[in-house]
């Protein structure tokens, strides 16, 4: 995906990682964007009423937490690793730890193992208190171009 990679080059030049989300329609619709104001790369999903999955609690839809953890992993791989292709997701396992309240969700990701073709990434999401995560995920991404690989973006 050359548009995203050229956006990445611009974002690096400006030092503003938030530019990455502009190239992804789904990230814009979901209000998911990376930020690096604190020196650490974080991904934020801004709360809006369409994220609700349970109106009684109320709580954010589990699917949207999985989606934002996946985006956090992708933004991490693009920004923090020397990637020449857009990472393609192979699979993701999400653990739901607490119900997510109707406020912003923040996530960070880290590479557990970097292989030549495959990367294993761990991501964690929380709300106001980082020591009380709402969901965690492990995901595999192909990071070498492969015409047959499934796309993440």
């Amino acid at each position: 995906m050359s548009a995203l990679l050229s956006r990445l080059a611009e974002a690096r030049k400006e030092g503003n990682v938030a530019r990455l989300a502009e190239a992804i329609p789904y990230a814009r619709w979901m209000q998911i964007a990376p930020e690096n104001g604190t020196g650490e790369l974080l991904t934020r999903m801004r709360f809006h009423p369409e994220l609700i999955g349970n109106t009684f609690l109320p709580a954010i839809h589990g699917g949207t937490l999985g989606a934002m953890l996946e985006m956090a992993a992708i933004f991490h791989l693009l920004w923090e690793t020397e990637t020449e292709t857009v990472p393609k997701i192979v699979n993701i396992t999400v653990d739901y730890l607490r119900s997510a309240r109707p406020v912003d969700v923040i996530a960070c990701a880290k590479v557990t193992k970097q292989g030549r073709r495959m990367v294993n990434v761990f991501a964690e999401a929380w709300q106001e208190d980082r020591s009380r995560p709402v969901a965690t995920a492990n995901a595999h991404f192909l990071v070498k171009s492969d015409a047959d690989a499934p796309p993440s973006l």
Partner: protein
Amino acid sequence: MEKDARIALFQQWFSDNIPHNKALGLKVIGASRGFASMQLEWREELVGNPETGVLAGGPLTAMLDGCCGMSVATMLKAPEPFATLDLRIDYVRPAEPGKPVIAEAECYRITRSVAFTRAFAHHGDAKDPIAAAAGTFMLGTKGKPTRPPLEDKP
């Protein structure tokens, strides 16, 4: 209960009344004991890569979570609240741009505390999946049940 009436009820409980499912435009196309099926129309906002028009992983994750959850609801003798415990998704091939995606979920085992589900997403041929999912759900969690009691149980 008639099939169409049952589908209409599940459409109300699992799409119209759940803001994110409604925002995605999830349409319930099947509901029977242990089985749930939904359809997601392709649209520009859900795309991950604007150059190819391929859907992002997120809408599929949310749809498969919702569909697995609905398959659990079809198994409950009495309505009770439940929540996703974990969800694994394998993205086996790209979704084709412009085509609707169908998800089919099965709740194959239910105990007092946990329900086990699996699901596939495809473009109409279940033997040629786009994504496969396995989800487990914790039963008897906080809140109110998603589905009200039924006189004629599904």
